[in-house]
């Protein structure tokens, strides 16, 4: 057992840090044509006319493509409600209305600015709370602005509120978040000698990209080949098709190789974001700290197209009660269309927003009861066999309590007793804790499988080497190394004797997406099972190769009115303690240290697990503090990284990643996913720490200086008002 559990260095690391690795934009070659999209730059309009004559007359311009050139002009991961190029209607400012193809990038850009589009501006809907009102404009004429309203009803919250010792209410909001992957969207497309349309790009799911693109061009899927170059991060941002089908369209139509890349500004305006949420909460507890009821209304801004909104919303809805077993739950999750930038998958997938409210409420409840927030959590945290708000027991392997206790132990070691400098210093320190739960893998009955093929090269007495075929994106997290380690372990081979074939939809079977923290568990299990079967066949004197599809325990859709169902087959658990320093004069919050404890089932590669915790915390800092994405009147006002503030190295805290290994019943060698977990409780931990430091609760993310100052001002005003205990 030496291939797993060790920190084997990444084979791709050297090339990536020296610049030798080839990302999609590095594939562009002399002689290719270049495509440039014409963006609408207006949030809601009717397209009256597109006049490409001037553009077409410009030197180097070869074609101007419009909606009429797309055979099936609809795509989407869950619902196909997004046009590749707009027909008669623009629904957000990043909508594409035409595609200019030219001999050089400069000619394409000049051509794009010469395409004349005549618009009739239409009313703009920008607040999802307004979208619920009757007489507001419809974003999609043929359907309601409410994309999904998911309810959960368990017990009787009203009776619980009436009998509780304390009832508190809270309002929260969270902002958009931009993925800001290292390399903006890019790709090349061409027809190969076998008359297949080949698209080389970056993504998160080869076979799903292929399915959607084949559908757009009305081609059999086998005639489309998707290949991934090196991928500079994805974080959910490459789950939806952004640029890839555009460059594919140009190559498909013109039958010549075409290249395309987006600038950072085009990427920020053009691809989806994390959902902003408005959350109102009412929680009740008994004097002893037992949480009796949680009533939550979550309204999410889905933006102009469906993307994965419905799934994100359902996740947020089930995590509105965090990792706590609560007898009476009433949750209303609502996601609406607006004319804002579409919202979709982003690391955490609805869980960070829901947890920010839930974790804040748990700590506030403890304060209202005069109890330690640690004890209130201990009393209510999920345990093995706990019933979810959706009515059935949790999948086995509940690590909520283990990570929490371990977090407390580590925090006692690492975090100093906070220094409340009183009125003397404007710098106040505080500590906050929070817990989290997040599904691993697809939820709510979405078809879940991963397939791998293992081909062994054998002698009569030994296995010499193996080919592992598994179509899976290594988005930078190290999935390919993890899968290789699993194969090496299963076959007892040196790592060098395991060859991975992973990045070509025609060469490797479908393992599903690199998302939902699922690839280690799902892909790993498929690889392990295929290795085991190929080995068994070899031992039995049969063909030493096997293709195995792994299917985990099944999940079901939730009942829309009650939420009843089996939402997930696996959860990851996390607990965090954060120490902050708040400057009460400027409202600036600095996270000084964070302890982040994760139940990963089994760490296949410890260094990579720690890397995921650290990288995820960088995005968590952005989500909680610095990344203030502004979309106003439907226009993105932070399209540059100079004004959209990703955390820098200096914004990063001292990180103490802690790995707990409580084996998962289904994962390969007990491993489960963990790549999203550090984002889940973090904002709640920071909010509690800011409260510990200042006495003020900040309820809106990101915690900008003015929000923190405002909260401090309000808390000073209300200092004498404490929540009343009813008898």
């Amino acid at each position, binding site marked *: 057992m030496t291939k797993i559990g060790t920190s084997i260095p990444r084979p791709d690391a050297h090339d990536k840090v020296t610049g030798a690795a080839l990302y999609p934009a590095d594939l562009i070659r002399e002689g290719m044509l270049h495509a440039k999209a014409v963006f609408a*730059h207006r949030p809601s309009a009717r397209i009256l006319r597109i006049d490409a004559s001037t553009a077409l007359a410009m030197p180097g311009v070869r074609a101007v493509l419009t909606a009429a050139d797309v055979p099936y002009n609809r795509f989407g991961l869950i619902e196909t409600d997004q046009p590749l190029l707009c027909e008669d209607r623009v629904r957000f400012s990043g909508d594409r209305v035409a595609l200019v193809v030219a001999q050089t990038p*400069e000619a394409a*850009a000049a051509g794009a600015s010469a395409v004349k589009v005549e618009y009739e501006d239409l009313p703009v809907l920008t607040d999802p709370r307004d979208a619920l009102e009757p007489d507001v404009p419809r974003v999609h004429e043929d359907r309601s602005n409410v994309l999904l309203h998911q309810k959960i009803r368990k017990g009787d919250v009203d009776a619980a509120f009436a009998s509780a010792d304390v009832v508190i209410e809270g309002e929260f909001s969270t902002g958009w978040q931009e993925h800001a992957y290292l390399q903006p969207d890019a790709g090349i497309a061409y027809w190969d000698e076998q008359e297949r349309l080949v698209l080389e790009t970056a993504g998160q799911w080869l076979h799903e990209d292929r399915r959607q693109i084949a559908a757009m061009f009305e081609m059999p899927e086998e005639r489309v080949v998707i290949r991934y170059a090196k991928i500079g991060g994805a974080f959910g941002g490459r789950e939806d098709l952004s640029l890839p089908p555009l460059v594919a369209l140009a190559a498909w139509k013109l039958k010549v190789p075409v290249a395309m890349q987006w*600038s950072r*500004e085009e990427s920020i305006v053009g691809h989806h974001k994390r959902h902003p949420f408005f959350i109102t909460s009412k929680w009740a507890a008994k004097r002893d700290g037992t949480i009796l009821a949680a009533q939550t209304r979550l309204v999410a801004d889905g933006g102009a197209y469906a993307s994965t909104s419905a799934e994100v919303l359902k996740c947020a809805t089930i995590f509105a009660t965090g990792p706590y077993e609560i007898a009476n739950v009433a949750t209303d999750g609502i996601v609406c269309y607006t004319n804002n930038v579409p919202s979709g998958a982003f690391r955490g997938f609805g869980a960070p927003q829901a947890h920010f409210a839930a974790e804040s409420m748990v700590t506030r409840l403890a304060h209202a009861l005069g109890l330690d927030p640690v004890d209130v959590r201990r009393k209510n945290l999920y345990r093995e066999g706990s019933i979810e708000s959706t009515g059935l027991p949790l999948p086995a392997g509940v690590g909520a309590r283990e990570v929490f206790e371990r977090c407390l132990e580590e925090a006692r070691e690492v975090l100093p007793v906070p220094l409340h400098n009183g009125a003397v210093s*404007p710098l106040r320190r505080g500590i906050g804790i929070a817990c989290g739960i997040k599904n691993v893998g697809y939820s709510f009955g979405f078809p879940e499988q991963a397939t791998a093929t293992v081909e062994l090269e054998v002698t009569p007495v030994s296995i010499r080497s193996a080919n592992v075929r598994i179509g899976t994106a290594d988005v930078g997290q190290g999935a390919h190394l993890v899968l290789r380690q699993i194969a090496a372990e299963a076959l007892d081979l040196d790592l060098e004797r395991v060859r991975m074939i992973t990045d070509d939809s025609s060469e490797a079977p479908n393992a599903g997406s690199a998302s939902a923290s699922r690839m280690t568990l799902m892909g790993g299990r498929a690889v392990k099972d295929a290795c085991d079967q190929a080995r068994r066949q070899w031992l039995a004197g049969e063909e030493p190769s096997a293709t195995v599809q792994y299917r985990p325990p099944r999940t079901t859709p939730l009942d829309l009115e009650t939420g009843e169902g089996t939402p997930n087959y696996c959860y990851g658990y996390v607990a965090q303690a954060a120490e902050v320093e708040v400057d009460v*004069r*400027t*409202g*600036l919050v*600095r996270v000084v240290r964070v302890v982040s404890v994760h139940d990963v089932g089994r760490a296949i590669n410890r260094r990579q697990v720690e890397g995921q915790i650290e990288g995820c915390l960088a995005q968590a800092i952005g989500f909680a*503090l*610095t990344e*203030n994405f*502004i979309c*106003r*009147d439907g*226009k993105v*006002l*932070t*399209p*540059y990284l*100079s*004004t959209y*503030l990703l*955390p*820098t190295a*200096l*914004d990063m805290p001292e990180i103490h990643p802690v790995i707990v290994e409580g084996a998962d019943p289904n994962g390969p060698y007990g491993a489960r996913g963990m790549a999203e977990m550090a984002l889940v409780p973090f904002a709640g931990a920071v909010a509690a720490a800011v409260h510990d430091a200042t006495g003020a609760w900040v309820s809106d993310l990101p915690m*900008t*200086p*003015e929000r923190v*100052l*405002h909260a401090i001002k309000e808390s000073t005003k209300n200092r004498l008002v404490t929540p009343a205990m009813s008898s």
Partner: protein
Amino acid sequence: MKPFRYARARDPQEAVQMVAVDAAASFVAGGTTVLDLMKDDVERPSLLVDINGVAGRAIVRAGDEIAIAALARMSDVADDPEIAKHAPMVANALLQSASPQLRNMASIGGNLMQRTRCSYFRDIVAPCNKRRRGDGCSAIGGENRRHAIFGGSESCICVHASDLAVALAAADATIHTNGPGGTRAIQVSDFYLLPRDTPNVETALHHAELISSVTLSLDPALANSTYVKVRDRAQYEFALVSVAAGMEIVGGTIRAARIALGGVAPIPWRVPEAEAALVGRPATAASYREAAEIALAGARGCGGNDFKVALAANAVVRALEQIGSAA
């Protein structure tokens, strides 16, 4: 980006002549700001005249004066021991600006000529009077969290982006230029122009006039000075508000004071009434708070930026406390 011509000048006169004959020509030194503006299509020069070879990058002290060559890089000035000793607010302002990579490239002249980071100014489909006079100002009634609480007009409420300019305003620095009409010396206070109804005109420079150097007159209030910058992340970010402040304190009494605010106005915002209020007063927290209130007396938010009034006052207090305790 629009295609453009590029040429190198050998000396300042040649550079000035090359730009003078072409109304759409611009100078380029480090290129860190003009390149961004060109990529965003905000500036479309027909010709860029590279001035990197026209003069040196020296920082020279002569008696009570320090002369900084316009081509000195931000990092040259930030790292200069004479500047750090005699004008720490200048060094501090630079060290809190941009990133190390940018500071290694960006020239002092270019830093002073950088343009506002207003989102609407850089979004060429949004109306902006600074880009095209008469189009209107999108920030008024729009997203204006970062905008001015002083000195705005009905046509523009942007804020100036340079930290260095704020320190130089507090220091009463002089900007020396070379132009088609010969050389000039311009006080920083006369260099930057309020938007009024011509927000497209930002400085006193004429077309083809080139900054050659900046001079600082040394005095005790400059020697005991600091730069406080409040921003949304720890580095590589523009100021929400900033304060350049210096005080001469003798026996616990303030003899002289210099205060300018950044991130609050379309130009570096000197606050002479607050400075005057400090002179003769004891170097105490009460004096600082009073000066801060005077400094912000005329401030007016426009919605999204209302918080800046209190934030700037607190930053003034913090800056004065830093140099008050250091004295």
